[in-house]
């Protein structure tokens, strides 16, 4: 039997003005288990807390009920006071007599009655309270960043600057991501390479950062503070430690038929290659799909010309294992495949390109050395048509497109249109738009400049069909404001294709037990208040893997994400919320119902031996909850048919006791 103390706060007249506090304290003093009951002017004050502490000592109280303001205000205060007297914090319950009683009711009699009932409910609960201990777990002071685009680089740099070790895992041979492929960046039009490559070098040179390029995440185990990751270092067939990046092998390689993915396939590269001049790490990679030596054992030229002796045709994939305290997903995006939009002629008409392809066609380091030439005949286009929202903003059931706005297309299309008009004033540029969406600092001004200063023709309407018409493209479109159907003979059509999360995101999300939405974007712990954290503790989100973003937004989110990671790594030990779920192994069926509804992946199963009848042992699969990962929502407790799963601090019996007390 608990020895319960009841403390009714007047809150000045806030409570006492409507509730007869003395009557409440008196009524509750007769409840079973209550050994002390009193009222006081301000329980939260220093002297109020003192009163409580004395009562705990004097009456050897094992449980406390405070009738006061909302627990959201002062629960922590009273818990601390109880703890100071050696009573477990979780033996304190609050009856909310202010927000839920005195402030909303006027009739003293009724308010007093309600206050007594709420007091009884709190007493009923305290009877079933058990002391709870917040657990602690150690923290490995190292972070893993998955993805080496601008998001991953920025997050890694910020974490490293705070003094913690960071590993970047990047699946391509170089870090840099999509930004490395861009020509200029909006709204300032500075060159992407000029601002990105110094950061890539910083990352490479930082003593706290290790870059595992051409590597992929293989498996992850563990929980916040204590992750164990396996990383597959794919065979480059080039010894990274020996290669100097001189590039002689790439020049001498006789097999020059591999499509150059960095240039969106507009030109070819060798079977041994360095993606681009500023690649980090700047080492060669052999593409096993094309290398003659690897395919049929004949060639070996690169090995002969390599002065450093870095070529190693026998290299194998290597799996390394590392421990981390926090993991950052920065897996980025890709444009969707525009081939599904056959009506725009992509894939059948060579002069229909995507915006990312156009970036390469305009980039000084691209296949045309920065001169805008159309792919079909390398001629300069005189009429260029941009189509916005290709695959964005589609209805949920659309099989070809995405339901969301890709967010960056309006701005980069304005940029493209502007750059073309600036470099080639003899070009007519049309942009077909549904809406022009330019929220962002200096964004709308930028778009207006494209229209007003550069004379880009913005037309409200959509393109319906693009067909090849001799050397030109016939573009059939609507001009909704003029009520016309337009037929434009264009030389180049550029599709602003929707962006989607990288294909690897889904499997990485599964490994991390980080939840994802139906579009494969990572879900944030709270859409407003915790936007850079995954609901799974210790997993953080950086960049477009969480949702479409432009570069400035990506960089700010990357830094915010770093701050959250530093917050974890800076601690030596993590305190866990003790109000977590726990499973009674004797009752658990191991049916996995709870696991399915857990947003945190906190539940795992093990086969355990149990004593059966007649001295037999039975092996049963039972659930166990990792208290460091569980956040205490309780979804599992209802999913569990056997009642094995319960939530500490809000147990089935506690809640039913409150129900009973209220309905009495």
């Amino acid at each position, binding site marked *: 039997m608990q020895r319960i103390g009841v403390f009714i706060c007047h809150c000045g007249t806030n409570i006492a003005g409507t509730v007869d506090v003395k009557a409440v304290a008196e009524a509750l003093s007769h409840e079973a288990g209550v050994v002390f009951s009193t009222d006081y002017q301000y329980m939260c004050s220093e002297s109020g807390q003192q009163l409580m502490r004395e009562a705990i000592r004097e009456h050897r109280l094992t449980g406390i009920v405070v009738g006061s303001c909302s627990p959201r205000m002062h629960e922590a205060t009273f818990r601390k006071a109880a703890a100071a007297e050696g009573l477990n914090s979780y033996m304190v319950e609050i009856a909310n007599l202010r927000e839920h009683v005195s402030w909303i009711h006027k009739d003293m009699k009724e308010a007093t009655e309600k206050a007594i009932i709420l007091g009884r409910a709190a007493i009923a609960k305290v009877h079933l309270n058990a002391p709870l201990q917040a657990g602690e777990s150690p923290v490995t002071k190292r972070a893993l960043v998955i993805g080496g685009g601008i998001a991953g680089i920025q997050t890694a740099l910020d974490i490293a600057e705070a003094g913690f070790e960071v590993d970047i895992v990047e699946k391509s041979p170089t870090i840099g991501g999509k930004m490395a492929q861009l020509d200029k960046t909006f709204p300032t039009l500075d060159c992407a390479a000029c601002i990105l490559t110094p950061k890539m070098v910083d990352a490479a040179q930082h003593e706290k950062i290790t870059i595992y390029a051409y590597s992929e995440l293989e498996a992850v185990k563990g929980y916040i503070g204590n992750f164990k990751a396996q990383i597959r270092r794919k065979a480059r067939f080039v010894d990274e430690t020996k290669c100097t990046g001189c590039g002689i092998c790439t020049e001498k390689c006789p097999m020059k038929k591999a499509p150059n993915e960095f240039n969106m396939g507009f030109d070819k590269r060798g079977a041994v290659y360095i993606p681009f001049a500023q690649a980090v790490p700047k080492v060669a990679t052999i593409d096993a799909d094309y290398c003659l030596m690897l395919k049929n054992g004949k060639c070996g030229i690169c090995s002969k010309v390599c002065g450093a002796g870095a070529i190693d045709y026998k290299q194998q994939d290597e799996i390394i294992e590392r421990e981390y305290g926090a993991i950052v997903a920065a897996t980025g995006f890709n444009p969707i495949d525009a081939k599904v939009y056959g009506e725009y002629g992509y894939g059948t008409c060579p002069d229909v390109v995507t915006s990312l392809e156009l970036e390469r066609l305009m980039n000084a380091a691209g296949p045309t050395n920065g001169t805008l030439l159309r792919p079909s005949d390398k001629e300069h286009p005189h009429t260029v048509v941009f189509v916005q929202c290709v695959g964005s903003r589609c209805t949920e059931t659309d099989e070809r497109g995405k339901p969301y706005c890709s967010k960056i297309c309006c701005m980069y299309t304005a940029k493209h249109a502007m750059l073309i008009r600036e470099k080639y004033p003899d070009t007519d540029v049309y942009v077909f738009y549904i809406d022009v969406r330019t929220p962002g600092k200096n964004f709308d001004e930028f778009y207006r400049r494209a229209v007003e200063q550069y004379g880009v023709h913005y037309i409200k309407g959509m393109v319906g069909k693009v067909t090849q018409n001799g050397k030109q493209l016939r573009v059939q479109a609507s001009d909704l404001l003029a009520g016309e159907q337009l037929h434009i003979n264009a030389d180049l059509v550029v599709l602003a294709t929707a962006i989607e999360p990288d294909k690897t995101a889904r499997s990485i999300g599964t490994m991390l037990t980080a939840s994802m939405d139906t579009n494969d974007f990572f879900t944030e712990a709270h859409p407003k208040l915790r936007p850079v954290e995954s609901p799974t503790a210790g997993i953080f989100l950086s960049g477009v893997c969480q949702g479409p973003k432009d570069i400035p937004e990506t960089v700010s989110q990357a830094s915010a994400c770093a701050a959250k990671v530093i917050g974890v790594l800076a601690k030596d030990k993590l305190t866990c919320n003790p109000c977590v779920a726990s499973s009674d192994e004797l009752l658990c069926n*191991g049916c996995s119902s709870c696991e399915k509804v857990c947003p945190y992946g906190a539940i795992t199963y093990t086969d355990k031996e149990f004593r059966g009848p007649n001295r037999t042992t039975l092996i049963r699969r039972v659930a166990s909850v990792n208290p460091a990962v569980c956040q205490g929502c309780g979804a599992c407790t209802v*999913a569990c048919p*056997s009642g094995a799963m319960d939530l500490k601090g809000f147990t*089935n019996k506690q809640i039913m006791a409150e129900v009973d007390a209220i309905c009495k």
Partner: protein
Amino acid sequence: MQKMMEKRALELLADGTVSRVLGWSAGEFPYDMTPAVFETAEELQDGFVYNDFCGANLSKYLIKESRKEGKILVFLKPCDTYSFNQLLAEHRIIRDNIYVIGIECYGKADVEKLKAMGLEGITGIYMKDGEYTVETVYGSQTVKAYEAMAERCLACKSKKHVVYDELIGEDGEVVTDCNRFDMVEQLEAMTPEQRFAFWRGELSRCIRCNACRNVCPACSCEQCVFDNPNSGVAQKAAVNSFEENMFHIIRAFHVAGRCTDCGECSRVCPQNIPLHLLNRKFIKDMNAFYGEYQAGEDPDKKPPLGTYTLGDREA
């Protein structure tokens, strides 16, 4: 059929594929077919029976049986395979220790219906071409299948085996127009007062014998919440209407999304309470609200209560 099954079982026992056979044997009455485990060829030859009274779903017994030493052979009708799959998805049975023979089924007979037709001294039954031949001590007699078939079989949802190692007889198809929700719809069409009266009329007969729970393949908890004194809701016998309602609502809720609609609950109810109508209500609602879902059909598909979509209907 019985001959083929017995022959195959003997072969599998003999070649050591399995060490035990889970099948049926005659109970107190020849029409009262009871699940039984046979460990030797002799036991099998003596006791094994299969006929159209063998309605019992054997899958639940595998929770215990598949954890024992050696492999066990089990005969599963199409509807039983759904329960089997569901138990598999819930990790309740160990697949490696089980050899499943799927057996064809065209509907089991309800002995009560036969008795009501005046048949006495029933000793056996088999179906051929849409007719049951009922053997009695007074000779055999044929009855139109649909006149004597169990209600649940008349509304059979599937003649397809969703899991098996081998088949005896033919595999069928999912029955798309089984009309199994007709009665639920009729109830839904009533006024709340009529519905309340209907269910009071039914549930007030409940004697809390727990037969429904004990036979149900989804009710396989180590300890039922209603038996657990620490659960706060333990009740051994329903003392009043509330407790009757409580037990059956919570039972239906606990099996919602897991119940394969095998109909065993109603089959075994000594008070003939149509308990399957509670489960079917949940199944029908889940289909209507969240898309078609058949428990046990595809172990990889997420159950309706284990997932959600952003656009779900409001409660």
